[in-house]
């Protein structure tokens, strides 16, 4: 038998026939198609039991109720809590993306110590022991006041624990990051004698006049403002937005009044002038519930006639008169200020001018007006025992001069700290704790801030993330992420009622982290002596539970306690009236429009940073979903776009998409040009919240940090940060 080619072919054919008659080809085709639809590298999220944890969002001071959706032990999504007085089911873009912050790759997974410029892991016990030893040294040297603490808030148990630690240790130097709240709280105190937070009853107002406030761009409690704005417009209310740029708030307002940046206060005084001149103010309020009206009359009467204001603000005199009439003619008018999200600072006199406008129409502590929301009083701990070192230390002047001769009205002037640190031969801050803040990114003139911080021998960051400030620190003692811990939320910013929220752990801490409150207690215990004795609590949770007392159970169940029957208190000034004038007010320098710093010849344009809901501009870096949701008119690849009026761009020889260099007295950056008719000629607008050097690849290196381009401006009289912009130039790259 000869085996030839034909046999081979025959074998093949037989094999083919047999294969076709076997299940192999049909089954394998089916299996391969299933495989190709379920590639093993495409993740399959495990199924499980769905549950919801009621909590309060702590990503901003807005105090929204949240419902964390879990699948077994995974936090899958954060949603708004239905029925919550602040947000009633809605939630802002950042809150919705919060699970990305929980599972962020830039989470610090355990305590770190910087050794020779590199991070080394360290145990909690060792880290606290080492830091306590350094603090003990400073105390032994009689310099307890050289320890400073920076945080975003000064309210609630966490802030109180930090402040208590500093006090018993012997330092007065607790700092809150600057925002328009500084000026608002001072304005309320000066005119009404009330130590209170400003609440805004936007929902019940019928005419809201906003001086560059981003009512729908993060101002106050974002989700509440969204709802309140809709509610008031639903009832026929109107909104007039005074702002140099057609922000989203301006675009959605009934009227947009473009104004030269920095002159908002002048317009407010111009309106005061018209309202007084035409006798449109509420006489019963002025006559029976206020004093010092003549002083206001004099100030506004002398130099703020419509024509003069028109020259200052660039608004036509007739528009000013009409606006004044519309405002005073409304039943429940409300004027608000604080640029953008309210994190762009402003001067005290500007806020006072707007506040007086409200007083003229009686919109103070009335439905639809500005409400003085009392500071929360549930924290009632026994006064700590202080030793001689501590008593002497806390008597030392604050490093920023707040509360002293120069700036008697201010409580915190963090903006003055960098200069204080670098001015003298010896650096006054020897140890610095930073919790819930990212000053190296968020303070104006970041280079100067970084320089000042580089002169601090010991920086301890309590951040959950490797942010810009943490990167500069010597130790990172990472806190739990916001969905992993208990924390009280003492107020909802701008909400017209006192409300107390509770943030609850939705998931167990994923890493070797410790909440700030627990870290402070542990550090105090490691210090021993009177410092340890002031912290008798076993843990932060025990402290919180004890502090909240009867409210605890309700807070755990509902997530909040609101004083529904709240009525604003009476004025607490010596006259028990609203004071347009008093000795403290008289001492303040007169209002002057705040110029942008810089030389007008070399910098013919003005740069105005602006806020957008799609970028977190505070201490937290935007998670990937926010950057993804950015418009193509804001960011293209890694380059930020600046808004420029087409007429200005033409003068500069720039067109849509042109690559350009934006320069200011503080620095320069490469940008692209976006022609936007909604911005006044002569201005350049740049979004806040970009230009991070820290965080993950989804955020770092994209765009420009506006804070690196602007310089701080000190508000005369109050000392508050008041820098809203800077002179700039834009040239073709």
């Amino acid at each position, binding site marked *: 038998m000869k085996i030839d080619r034909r046999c081979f072919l025959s074998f093949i054919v037989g094999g083919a026939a047999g294969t076709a008659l076997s299940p192999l080809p049909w089954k394998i085709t089916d299996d391969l198609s299933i495989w190709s639809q379920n590639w093993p590298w495409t993740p399959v999220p495990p199924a499980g039991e769905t549950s919801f944890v009621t909590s309060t969002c702590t990503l901003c001071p807005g105090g929204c109720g949240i419902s964390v959706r879990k699948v077994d032990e995974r936090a899958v999504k954060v949603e708004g809590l239905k029925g919550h007085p602040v947000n009633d089911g809605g939630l802002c873009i950042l809150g*919705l993306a919060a699970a990305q912050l929980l599972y962020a790759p830039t989470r610090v997974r355990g305590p770190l110590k910087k050794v020779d410029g590199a991070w080394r892991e360290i145990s909690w016990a060792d880290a606290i022991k080492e830091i306590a030893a350094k603090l003990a040294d400073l105390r032994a040297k009689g310099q307890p006041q050289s320890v400073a603490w920076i945080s975003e808030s000064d309210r609630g148990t966490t802030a109180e624990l930090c402040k208590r630690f500093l006090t018993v240790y012997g330092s007065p130097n607790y700092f809150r990051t600057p925002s328009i709240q500084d000026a608002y709280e001072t304005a309320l105190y000066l005119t009404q004698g009330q130590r209170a937070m400003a609440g805004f009853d936007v929902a019940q107002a019928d005419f809201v006049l906003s001086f560059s406030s981003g009512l729908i761009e993060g101002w106050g409690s974002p989700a509440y403002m969204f709802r309140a704005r809709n509610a008031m417009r639903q009832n026929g209310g109107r909104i007039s937005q005074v702002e140099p740029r057609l922000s989203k708030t301006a675009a959605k307002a009934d009227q947009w009044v473009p104004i030269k940046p920095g002159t908002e206060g002048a317009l407010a005084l111009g309106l005061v002038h018209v309202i007084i001149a035409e006798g449109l103010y509420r006489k019963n309020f002025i006559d029976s519930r206020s004093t010092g009206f003549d002083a206001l009359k004099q100030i506004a009467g002398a130099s703020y006639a419509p024509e003069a204001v028109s020259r200052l603000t660039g608004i036509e005199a007739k528009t000013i008169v009409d606006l004044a009439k519309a405002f005073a003619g409304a039943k429940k008018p409300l004027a608000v200020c604080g640029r953008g999200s309210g994190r762009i600072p402003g001067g005290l006199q500007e806020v006072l001018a707007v506040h007086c406008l409200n007083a003229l129409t009686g919109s103070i502590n009335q439905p639809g007006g500005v409400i003085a929301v009392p500071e929360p009083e549930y924290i009632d701990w026994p006064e700590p025992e202080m030793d001689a070192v501590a008593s002497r230390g806390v008597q030392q002047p604050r490093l920023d001069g707040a509360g002293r001769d120069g700036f008697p009205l201010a409580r915190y002037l963090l903006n003055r700290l960098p200069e204080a640190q670098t001015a003298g031969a010896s650096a006054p801050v020897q140890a610095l704790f930073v919790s819930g803040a990212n000053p190296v990114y968020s303070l104006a003139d970041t280079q100067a801030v970084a320089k000042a911080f580089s002169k601090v021998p010991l920086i301890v960051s309590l951040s959950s993330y490797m942010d810009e400030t943490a990167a500069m620190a010597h130790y990172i003692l990472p806190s739990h992420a916001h969905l992993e811990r208990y924390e009280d939320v003492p107020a909802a910013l701008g909400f017209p009622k006192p409300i107390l929220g509770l943030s609850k752990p939705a998931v167990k801490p994923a890493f070797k982290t410790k909440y700030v409150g627990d870290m402070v207690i542990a550090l105090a215990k490691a210090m021993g002596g009177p410092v340890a004795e002031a912290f008798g609590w076993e843990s932060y949770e025990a402290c919180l539970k004890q502090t909240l007392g009867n409210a605890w159970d309700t807070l755990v169940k509902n997530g909040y306690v609101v004083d529904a029957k709240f009525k604003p208190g009476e004025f607490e000034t010596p006259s028990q009236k609203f004071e347009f004038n008093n000795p403290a007010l008289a001492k303040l320098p007169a209002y002057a429009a705040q110029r942008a710093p810089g030389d007008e010849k070399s910098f013919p344009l003005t740069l105005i940073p602006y806020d957008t809901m799609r970028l977190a501009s505070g201490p937290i870096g935007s998670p990937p*979903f926010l950057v993804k949701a950015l418009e193509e008119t804001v960011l293209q690849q890694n380059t930020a776009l600046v808004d420029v009026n087409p007429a200005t761009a033409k003068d500069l020889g720039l067109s849509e998409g042109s690559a350009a260099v934006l320069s200011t007295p503080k620095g320069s950056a490469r940008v692209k040009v976006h022609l936007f008719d909604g911005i006044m000629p002569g201005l350049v607008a740049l979004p806040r919240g970009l230009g991070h050097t820290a965080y993950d690849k989804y955020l770092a290196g994209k765009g420009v940090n506006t804070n690196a381009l602007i310089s701080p401006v000190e508000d005369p009289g109050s000392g508050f940060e008041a820098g809203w912009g800077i002179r700039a130039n834009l040239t073709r790259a």
Partner: protein
Amino acid sequence: MDQQNGNTKKYGMVIDLDKCTGCGACMVACMAENNVPFREDDTDKLLSVSWMRVYRLGNGKPFPQVEECYLPRPCQQCEGHAGHSPCVSVCPATATDYDMRTGIVSQIPTRCFGCRYCMAACPYHVRQFNWWDPIWPDGMERMLNPNVSVRMRGVVEKCGFCFHRYQLATDKAYLDGRRELEEGEYQTACAQACPAGAILFGDLNNPTHAVHKIAQPDSTHGGRPRNPKAFRLLERLGTNPKVYYLSSKEWVRKAGDNQVQRTEQTPKA
């Protein structure tokens, strides 16, 4: 059409552009709900996957008469004529389908083989192609929602009115012995999240539902809204979409007939 299960649903949306603030919460709520992937550089919007997108419309006037409006654009869930929506008509793989019982245009990614014919057919740019494998940074895959399957590279995806929430809502109803869902039991993630309350969702066929009352669809004229403030995108194409927009401004209502295309063609520099 559906005797045993009672009447036929026609789930639809009414988006009030007077209320919409352009904040983008709907986009992110959608991304988080539906496991939408993200990339290091997602700024090229023609390549970026986003089921919901908020467009910026302008009235085209110079400073200071310029006006802006923001327009959220989910899938428009076109019914066309008798369910022949543009994308469903062209899909060679039966990966996308129109369901007459709910009015939802479904997209089953595992069935799709990525020819992108539907993307060409869709006049609203609601469909996006996965040019890359979806990758979550280490640890972040823990936030993935098991009720929505993760899409692989090479397939088209789009908004399906969160129909997994419909599935879950019907599950709950069945357990309670009900066949019918209450208004509000089935809500899309964007409608639930909108902090301005601009997005309403419900059954357009049900006269008691808010969406029906507001849009007042005229079933004899291909669902055209009777409410003079309401309009649909590219009405003239006869796609018969189920997303109605409200605006008190005439230029916005007019822009709805061409602006979506124009914005998309903004040249990239």
